[in-house]
């Protein structure tokens, strides 16, 4: 096994499993967190990640297949997506096409009542098409505010890391192709007004 990546909360290693190239995603202990809190969060996230991926697979969404869950080691074994992160892909020339696919993918998730919780550009992978990964903070919900919060996280990661491209408009125009998107976009406006665009300091 080789360490591939140290993510936001997990160590991701590649390896072989039943003749396939797979990813071992292990949530390692955080020494700064109280042990009770640590245990609660890791279990919650492991469980919700595997459940939500299963749910999306059953609808044919582009997510890595799950091969197994090793509860005692806080490890999920999943399909290796042989590509680059969207983060990297957006630095190339085809960024518009990737943004379009990502927007459609996120609206598909939302239409299936999955809220991703952390859809930054590091949590999408690009191969021949765009895949979504990392469901550790995901929930099942049809709440438009929660969906809007997803949009905000994505736009913020776009804004803060790809400020050279005006991805916002492209992304939102493809997202709005989803028939139920109007209320989400409405909620996004409210959220952005409440947040950093309306700093009430003191």
């Amino acid at each position, binding site marked *: 096994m080789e360490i591939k990546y*140290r*993510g*936001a*909360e997990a160590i991701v290693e590649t390896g072989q499993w039943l003749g396939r190239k797979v990813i071992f995603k292990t949530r390692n202990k*955080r*020494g*700064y*967190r*109280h042990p*009770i*809190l640590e245990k*609660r*969060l890791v279990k919650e996230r492991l469980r919700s990640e595997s459940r939500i991926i299963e749910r999306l697979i059953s609808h044919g969404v582009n997510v890595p297949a799950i091969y197994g869950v090793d509860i005692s080691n806080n490890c999920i074994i999943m399909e290796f997506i042989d590509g680059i992160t969207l*983060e990297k892909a957006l630095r190339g020339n085809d960024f518009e096409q990737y943004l379009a696919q990502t927007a459609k993918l996120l609206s598909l998730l939302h239409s299936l009542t999955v809220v991703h*919780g*952390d*859809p*930054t550009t*590091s949590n999408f992978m690009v191969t021949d098409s765009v895949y979504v990964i990392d469901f550790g*903070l995901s929930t099942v919900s049809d709440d438009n505010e929660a969906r809007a*919060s997803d949009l*905000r*996280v994505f736009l*913020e*990661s776009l*804004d*803060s*890391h790809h*400020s*050279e491209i005006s991805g916002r408009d492209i992304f939102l125009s493809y997202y709005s192709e989803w028939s139920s998107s109007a209320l989400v976009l409405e909620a996004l406006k409210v*959220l952005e007004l*409440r*947040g*950093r665009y*309306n*700093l*009430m*300091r*003191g």
Partner: protein
Amino acid sequence: MRKTLSKIAIGIESTAHTAGVGLITSEGKILSNQRALYVPKEGGIHPREAANHHSEKLPDLFKSALEEAKLTPTDISLVSYARGPGLGPCLRTGATAARAFAYYHDIPLLGVNHCVAHLEIGILEGATDPVLLYLSGANTQVIAYAAGRYRVFGETIDIGIGNGLDKFAREVGMGFPGGPKLEKIAEGDVLLDLPYSVKGMDLAFSGLMTAAKQKLDSGHSLASVAYSIQETAFAMSCEVSERALAHTGKKELVLGGGVACNSRLREMADIMTKERGVKCFVPERALCVDNGVMIAWLGLQMMGADYNITEKDNEVDQKYRTDMVEVTWR
């Protein structure tokens, strides 16, 4: 293109509770850091009362800063003040004092961004390209440099962590500032179950504080509730910093803001960065809280990079966002 000649700047801070006047040289030698804290008689901050407090204290703070540094106004080559973000009346008081001093002594004047100043103090501490975990009363943000600006990667989506702590403390009858008082009494090892609210790199505190109050009302001791608030809120803050470090690939963390004075927070940030193999820069407490030194230091950084002062630079801006500042000095 840094100027090589040593310069001295005076910085005036007055965005919220603190009136501060600081002096620093372009080599980073701190000559004075004078502060006065406005404590509301009851309830939260009253902007006008705070502004009155600041206008009363600022003249003395100027005087004691210059005395401590053994300087006269002629030794100073820049007057820097916090242009925003902050409370209108407080900002205007600071800007007025800064303007008066600058015009009277014929020294260039420059209004700078308060949040960016917190980050630049981390650079004074030796960081080169850090992620800043900025935890103060109203501000709770994760900030880092990308493509010409300091950008907000994550932040609170409801209340600032410090205001949350203060509000809880007030409700249980403790005075201002609540954060340090809660830190003193926080005790225990049993963690009460409180909402842990992290959404990507954003966080939320209002549900946590409400739930904490309910725990107290249902019979848990204040010590254990305070302990659980700290454990939960600070773990959330460390987690979003960790996410920002992972997302940006940066290798340094800087702590800033009043809540960054908390020892448990410092300990958690230290463990987190060690586990990640990242360097942690923790400015001394007098530089974490709002202070004039950081305002002066940022002004010097900007001038050192041949910043062109325009008319806009003697205004105030309550909603002066971090990412509105074009970073030309690095």
